[in-house]
């Protein structure tokens, strides 16, 4: 583990920990996040983790670039991965159904599996949250079973329902709010992914783990899900 430090902007440095996306990265990323937050204290403006990197945005009136580099080196000196289970674990109920997950059949055809087997493979893995981005609370999770890996739609949809669960290549995610998007939709979760009233705002944080749990329509509605089909949402 020899992190590289790169210049990004007047008040931002990139800490590059890895060169490839892997689930094993996350215990290291969590450890580095904790150390950097402690090391920078009030001089830290934002810390943006993403797959292999941590962007450190610091207060440029408090630290010079040289001092910021030194703080990073100090913080990461002798870094050890966090023990397993350091992030939070979540179980997201998902109603896998063609009416809200129109690409279920596409994935089945591509993989040669039955729809039931596609659902089973998507829901049996415990995913890592690699990064949040695109929209508040949108968590990029992986890695999806290689057999299910599917490229994004050629033409993104203009509107995707809140809670929609999708797959893009070997990643999976759920849309926190109605938004445009090009992921292959396979179901919908009733979980509220971003809530300004919640402590920490976002249900999922980088470094958390997530498992999807298939629920039937009645249970989905019971949990507060909205089953309005996509086409009815203009």
């Amino acid at each position, binding site marked *: 583990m020899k992190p590289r430090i*790169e*210049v*990004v*902007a*007047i*008040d*931002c440095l*990139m800490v590059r920990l890895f060169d*490839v*996306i892997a689930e094993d990265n996350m215990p290291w990323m969590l450890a580095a996040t904790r150390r950097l937050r402690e090391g920078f204290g009030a001089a830290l*403006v*934002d*810390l*943006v*983790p*993403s*797959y*292999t*990197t*941590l*962007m450190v*945005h610091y207060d*440029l*009136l408090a630290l*010079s*670039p*040289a001092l910021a580099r030194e703080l990073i080196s100090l913080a990461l000196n002798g870094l050890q991965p966090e023990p397993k289970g350091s992030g939070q674990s979540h179980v997201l109920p998902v109603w896998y159904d063609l009416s809200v997950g129109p690409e279920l059949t596409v994935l089945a055809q591509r993989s040669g599996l039955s729809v039931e087997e596609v659902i089973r493979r998507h829901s049996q893995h415990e995913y890592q949250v690699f*990064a*949040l*981005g*695109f*929209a*508040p*609370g*949108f*968590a*990029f999770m992986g890695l999806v079973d290689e057999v299910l890996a599917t490229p994004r739609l050629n033409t993104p949809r203009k509107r995707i329902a809140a809670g929609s669960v999708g797959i893009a290549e070997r990643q999976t995610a759920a849309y926190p*709010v109605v938004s445009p998007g090009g992921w292959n939709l396979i179901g919908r979760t009733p979980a509220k992914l*971003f809530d*300004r009233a919640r402590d*920490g*705002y*976002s249900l999922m*944080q*980088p470094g958390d783990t997530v498992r999807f749990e298939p629920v039937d329509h009645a249970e989905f509605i019971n949990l507060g899900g909205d089953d309005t089909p996509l086409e009815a949402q203009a």
Partner: protein
Amino acid sequence: MSRLLIEASTPLCLLQDAGRFGVRHLGVTQGGALDWVSMSWANWLLGNALDAPVVEVTLGGFTVQAEEYCLLALAGADLGAYVDERAISPGRSFILQKGQRLRFTQPFSGARAYLAAPGGFDAPKVLGSCASVGREELGGLDGLGRALAEGAYLRYSSAGGDMRVLSAEQLPNLQSKAPLELIVGAQIGQFSGQSLFDAFNTEWTLDSRADRMGMRLLGTPLQYQGPSLISEGIPLGGIQVPPDGQPIVLLNDRQTIGGYPRLGALTPLALARLAQCLPGEKVRLVPVVQETAHQQHVEYVRRFH
């Protein structure tokens, strides 16, 4: 409490402050005034905290009427502002008597004007800031990120403020043709030699495809020759180069991570100048090292004290 009725507005008239911080890891954008220098001066004119909530008026089309005596300050672009029939230039505090109107007509110099009130305009802080981001439904008067709308009221609670005027020396030069300083980033060496020459020796035209997320620069396409990248955090002012070779300057409402190669990032002072440029204007880029840019920045912000 003092109140102003918004009689005319556009989707480009927004309540802003310095932006939202400490939440980028949750996918929440930064937001905030695009020209932070003019926002700071508008607040300075009243003796406010430099990041107190202000109105960002882009291009014009904004009118308010005072419901009672109001003390206000104006900085940034000259958008043909009038107090009733009297023209008012940016860079001063001024009084709006009960019933008087402040109107922004059209851009004469620059693109964005900043209107400040004693102690800042009242607005709920959402995730620590009132910066309006429509896409994320955060900030603004209603907390849901909407633009300022006709019929709504701007309020401020502070009883009084300073009455200051910016000296000629303090007024930012919005006509400056000085090149925009760019701190070169880690991927700079992976652009072709010709592209590196073009980046810093040719003119770039500001595309009309511009919003608070980013501004596209039109010119000779730049060629990136490195490997494809894994998405990573992207900074304010970052200049990313998508496969079509036309650079995009990332602004306050940008997404939090992205996977396009970057030339580097504009300095905050360069960004403030860029925020006052209109589509069709031409700009140049000049490389600067991080340490030098940092020193210049620290030097500049001393003016506010």
